[in-house]
């Protein structure tokens, strides 16, 4: 077998160009697969490990105020493993050089020690000193946004009182892996802070001496959330309990879960397509490669090699290419995965990141790629082996051709080279079909990785130009009387103001429920539109409730059904409201009513939860300073900031992933086209050389070969567009979350971009093949076919 091994090495060397291209396809497919699944796995592992090690609570409850003594009674509830009472206080921070309002939340920790639940991970510095009431820990995301370090001072307003506090350390909590202000759609690290203070200090600052307003707990094994929560709610009710909720409804956890699910869709879906395309190509290419060795196989057979030895030889040939591709792919994928996980970590604030390359992932990737190569090789070897050696050694008889459909239909004006191209394609429709599908898949992959940019732009446009037109949203810490609006109208730069009423609520239909809020808006709001499926403004009805279509889907409710709405504030009425219609929203989910109807159902006179403002841009800094001084303002959201935060989130999560994918898709596109061209060249070299002898110029024979390639590419475009549109639809469908739903918007730019990349790949392949055409050996054409 030694001679055969040498032949193997020489074959590999001769076909190195194609070998490299095939290996690149495998590498790209395997890398995508390994990268996506490993990055996802790494985030999942980190989540699990952080939750476990930092003792992330399982049930959470907020209340107005209860004496610490109640804590003991709560601990007696059966099924509770650990329960901690805490004080939480909203706060405002003033930073020099930062004009915009910063809000945040102060959370108590036992004096100078770690809490039992939601333990903090100290990135820098230390816990606040036991005997100092002015030391705090700040969340890492906020610290990074403002370059804070231990020892720095902060001007903080808690409970309307200014305090100068000192940063003792920078910390991370399992409770705020996804650090987002309640009511916001996207994290904004520079405008929302989490700080931790000694319990004694925070009690004093917030006027909560000997009391608590927040409870976290874990359950003993075997106890259900529901019973513990109902017990807890009963005991907290007299103290202004706002309804306990389980981890599934904890904001950071819920958002993290949704993001991870979304990444999971991408991480499972895209790599499967990538590796599927790679496998498909590998099958086609190896089969053709082996077919060009037909005579050699016959010779080996004539010498007495049996089919197993020959098959083994060619398997070794393709598998060595697979191994090179797979090793490169695994290394590349692992490297990219750690990079990707690192980028996500910017966003999901894990104290640490677990990173593990799972053998199963690697093995699956290699098996898919290797299996496809083996199947392609074996089928070709089998076909070559069926021929009697004498026949296989003879030059192949002229292939059978016939006039093409177009010619039979009466088109006769074509030149002979054009006829050659068309007949060649038509004679082997399956082969041409494979090439078209292969190139089409490359087009589809490019679309799949490229369309999100346009879709996201569209989504932003709809959300912030058509739906939410207010420049500033101000939310109050307590509902206020509607005359408060005049105060805002008088503020600098405010051109228009409109009040709204929002109440946290559990929406329930049948056994399904969703924790959200009911928004009460002016029926003819100038600043906030709800849109129908055609993106036309919908008038909010006087009675009844409108639901985001996605929310209606979650609840399984349709217009005409009656929705149970359990309001989670004030007297907490249980309402029964008819669903009057559905509205389309790409970002968030909502339930909308007319403000008048909502306040009436709440049993209030005319109240506001906040105001929408239209503002002159130049006056924003002055307005911000003014808003800072209004005590009842709990939060100020600037539209521009939301857009920026959203863009940042998209850029860091989806788009980074997409750019990686795009590079991979581009290289696969090139490899597909290059291999198609290379094989066509190998199959047609003799014919082209003959034409050169007959006096054809290089440009003329290039037309025959590259014309075919170009025609295949052009045929592949519509195929790719259809495949691509389908895949994009699947992806957007799979990626729907409560947070946002990327609409399927395929802009001409998306199609053009995909087409341009694949055409460029065709051009590059044509140039490479062109070089071989230059060196085409005419004399070889005169000799016997090899």
């Amino acid at each position, binding site marked *: 077998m030694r001679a055969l091994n040498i032949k193997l090495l020489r074959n590999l060397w001769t076909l190195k160009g194609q070998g490299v291209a095939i290996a690149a396809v495998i590498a790209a497919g395997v890398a995508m697969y390994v990268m996506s699944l490993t990055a996802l796995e790494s985030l999942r592992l980190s989540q699990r490990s952080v939750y476990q090690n930092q003792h992330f609570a399982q049930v959470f409850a907020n209340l107005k105020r209860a004496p610490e003594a109640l804590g003991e009674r709560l601990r007696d509830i059966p099924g509770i493993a650990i329960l901690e009472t805490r004080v939480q206080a909203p706060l405002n921070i003033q930073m020099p050089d930062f004009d915009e309002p910063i809000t945040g939340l102060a959370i108590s920790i036992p004096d100078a020690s770690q809490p039992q639940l939601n333990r903090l991970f100290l990135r820098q510095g230390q816990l606040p000193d036991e005997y100092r009431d002015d030391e705090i820990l700040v969340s890492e995301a906020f610290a990074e946004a403002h370059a804070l370090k231990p020892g720095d001072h902060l001007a903080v307003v808690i409970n309307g009182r200014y305090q100068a506090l000192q940063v003792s350390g920078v910390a991370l909590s399992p409770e705020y892996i996804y650090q987002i202000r309640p009511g916001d759609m996207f994290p904004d690290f520079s405008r929302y802070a989490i700080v931790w203070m000694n319990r004694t200090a925070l009690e004093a600052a917030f006027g909560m001496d000997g009391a608590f307003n927040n409870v976290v707990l874990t359950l003993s094994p075997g106890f259900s959330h529901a019973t513990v929560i109902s017990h807890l709610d009963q005991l907290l009710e007299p103290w202004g309990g706002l309804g306990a909720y389980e981890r599934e409804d904890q904001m950071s956890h819920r958002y993290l879960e949704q993001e991870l699910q979304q990444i999971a869709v991408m991480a499972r879906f895209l790599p499967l397509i990538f590796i599927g395309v790679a496998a498909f190509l590998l099958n086609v290419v190896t089969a053709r490669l082996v077919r060009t060795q037909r005579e050699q196989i016959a010779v080996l057979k004539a010498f007495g090699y049996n089919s197993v030895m020959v098959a083994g030889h060619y398997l070794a040939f393709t598998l060595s290419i697979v191994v090179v591709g797979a090793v490169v792919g695994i290394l590349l994928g692992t490297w990219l995965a750690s990079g990707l996980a690192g980028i996500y970590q910017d966003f999901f604030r894990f104290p640490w990141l677990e990173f593990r390359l799972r053998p199963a992932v690697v093995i699956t990737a290699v098996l898919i790629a290797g299996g496809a190569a083996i199947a392609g090789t074996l089928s070709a070897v089998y076909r070559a082996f069926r021929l009697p050696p004498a026949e296989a050694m003879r030059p192949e008889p002229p292939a*059978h*051709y016939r006039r093409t459909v177009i010619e039979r239909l009466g088109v006769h004006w074509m030149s002979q080279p054009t006829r050659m191209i068309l007949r060649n394609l038509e004679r082997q429709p399956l082969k041409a079909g494979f090439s078209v599908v292969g190139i089409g898949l490359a087009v589809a992959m490019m679309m799949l990785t490229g369309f999100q940019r346009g879709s996201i732009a569209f989504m932003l446009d709809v959300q912030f130009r058509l739906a939410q037109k207010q420049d500033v949203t101000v939310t109050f810490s307590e509902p206020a009387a509607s005359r408060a609006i005049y105060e805002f109208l008088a503020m600098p730069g405010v051109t228009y103001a409109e009040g709204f009423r929002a109440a946290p609520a559990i929406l329930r239909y049948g056994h399904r429920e969703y924790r959200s809020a009911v928004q009460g808006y002016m029926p003819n709001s100038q600043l906030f539109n709800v849109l129908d499926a055609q993106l036309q403004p919908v008038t909010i009805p006087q009675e009844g409730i409108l639901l985001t279509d996605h929310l209606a889907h979650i609840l399984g409710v349709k217009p005409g059904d009656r929705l149970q709405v359990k309001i989670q504030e004030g007297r907490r009425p249980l309402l029964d409201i008819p669903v009057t219609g559905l509205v389309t929203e790409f970002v968030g989910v909502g339930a909308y009513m007319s403000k008048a109807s909502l306040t009436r159902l709440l049993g209030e006179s005319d109240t506001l939860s906040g105001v929408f403002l239209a503002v002159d841009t130049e006056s924003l800094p002055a307005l911000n300073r003014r808003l800072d001084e209004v005590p009842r303002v709990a939060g100020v959201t600037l539209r521009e900031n939301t857009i920026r935060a959203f863009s940042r989130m998209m850029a860091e999560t989806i788009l980074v992933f997409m750019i990686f994918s795009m590079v991979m898709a581009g290289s696969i596109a090139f490899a597909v086209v290059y291999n198609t061209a290379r094989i066509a060249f190998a199959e047609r070299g003799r014919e082209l050389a*003959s034409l050169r*002898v007959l006096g054809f110029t*290089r440009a003329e024979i290039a037309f025959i070969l590259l014309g075919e390639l170009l025609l295949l590419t052009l045929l592949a475009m519509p195929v790719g567009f259809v495949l691509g549109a389908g895949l994009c639809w699947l992806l957007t469908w799979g990626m729907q979350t409560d947070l946002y739903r990327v609409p399927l918007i395929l802009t001409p730019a998306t199609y053009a971009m995909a087409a341009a990349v694949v055409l460029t790949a065709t051009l590059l392949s044509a140039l490479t093949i062109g070089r071989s055409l230059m060196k085409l050996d*005419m004399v070889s054409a005169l000799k016997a076919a090899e």
Partner: protein
Amino acid sequence: MNDMTAPVFRTRNLTRIFRMGEVEIQALRGVDLELYAGEFVVLLGASGSGKSTLLNILGGLDAASSGEVWYRGKDLSHADEKTLTEFRRYHVGFVFQFYNLIPSLTARENVAIVTEIARDPMAPADALRLVGLEARMDHFPAQLSGGEQQRVAIARAIAKRPEVLLCDEPTGALDSKTGIKVLEVLCNINRELGTTTAVITHNAVIADIANRTIRISDGRVSEVIHNPHPVAPDTLHW
């Protein structure tokens, strides 16, 4: 044979060395020869004698290592790629041992592919009529016998009305009966169109139909035999 004084081809001290790695193979070792307008020449030689190399150089497919090739007063030995392509396109017709037809084109179209790029060609149908294939014009190569395929190749070579027809073992892949039919076609073309014809063969019998036989051995012209009375191909046997 009309004008013996102005050769169509003239070579002087033509050599060709192939370098295969570290081995040098001298295929031609100084060939001097002339081909005259309208004559039918057989280049006779054993395999490896260098006759194919000589034909390739004459046809502009290969360049000599040293020496000169002149075609009608044009120096081919120093011609660039463009000149050589034009030379092949307008002046030379090739017939190959293995026909080298384009399988995707019919007989007529295989001829047309050359006439489309030629100056003043004959109609493909006329060329095919000359080789006796008027009935098979719309057949694809796969539907033709070897002899028929070779006749299509000849029709393709002559359709552009070349001055020279270069044939490399045109009967090499054919049985003797079919081979003779192909030779008849070549003789007819030579006689009716006056095309200078050079046929390479290792089959000495074929020399009898030529005006001149140039014997090549070991990279040189070893003998030139004038044949004042060429015989008709149908009298040959091998």
